[in-house]
Structure formats: structure tokens, C-alpha cells
């Protein structure tokens, strides 16, 4: 899962943190949690799509 965690950190930082401040504020934290859920949704969808294609 290391690769997944690394990619999510990079992608969600880019989407959620525009100007890095002195701490993660609550809206940034919410955005990161949501982004993480969507990234995993997308991962599952990609996995299903690819699986059905190569069968």
C-alpha cells in the first residue's frame, strides 16, 4: 500500500493545499479526507475496469 499512500499524499496536497500555512486548518483536513476517499473510489473503479478488460 506504500505506493498508494505516497500517490495520495502528493495528489491530495496538490488539490487541497494552495498556500501551505503554519498548520493544516480544518477545511484543508476535510478536503484531504474527501480527496483520499475519492482517490480510493477511483482506484477501485480503475481496478474493475482494467480487470474486466484483460479477462
Amino acid at each position: 500500500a506504500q505506493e498508494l499512500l505516497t500517490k495520495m499524499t502528493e495528489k491530495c496536497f496538490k488539490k487541497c493545499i494552495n498556500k501551505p500555512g503554519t498548520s493544516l486548518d480544518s477545511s484543508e483536513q476535510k478536503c484531504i479526507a474527501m480527496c483520499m476517499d475519492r482517490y480510493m473510489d477511483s482506484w477501485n473503479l480503475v481496478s474493475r475496469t482494467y480487470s474486466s478488460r484483460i479477462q
Partner: protein
Amino acid sequence: KQKAQFQAQIHEFNSFCWDKCIEKPGAKLDSRTETCITNCVERFIDTSLLITNRFAQMLEKGGGMH
């Protein structure tokens, strides 16, 4: 080993199609985004097959890289 390769492919597709299809992550994947991701993966595979086959044909004809 094959499973690792499969997972590596999914990471690559997901990273690529995320950048293509996700503007701002929302409360769920809406159907438009789902369609975009599915089509992105399918067309990426099509593109890869098209290029691989065409490249194989070129090699047979002895052309391509010099």
C-alpha cells in the same frame, strides 16, 4: 510477480486518469467523473495496443528506429 505488475499498472492508470478527470474532489464520484475515468482507462489501453501493434508492424517491415 504478475500481481505486482497488475497493481503497478493500476497505480499508473489511476494517477494519469485522476489528473485528467478530477477537477476538485467532491462528496462522491459523480456519474460524469465515473464515465470519464472508465473511458480514460479504456482509451489508454486502446492507445497502448494501437501503438504496440503499429510498432511491431514497423519492425517487421524493417523500418522505425535507425
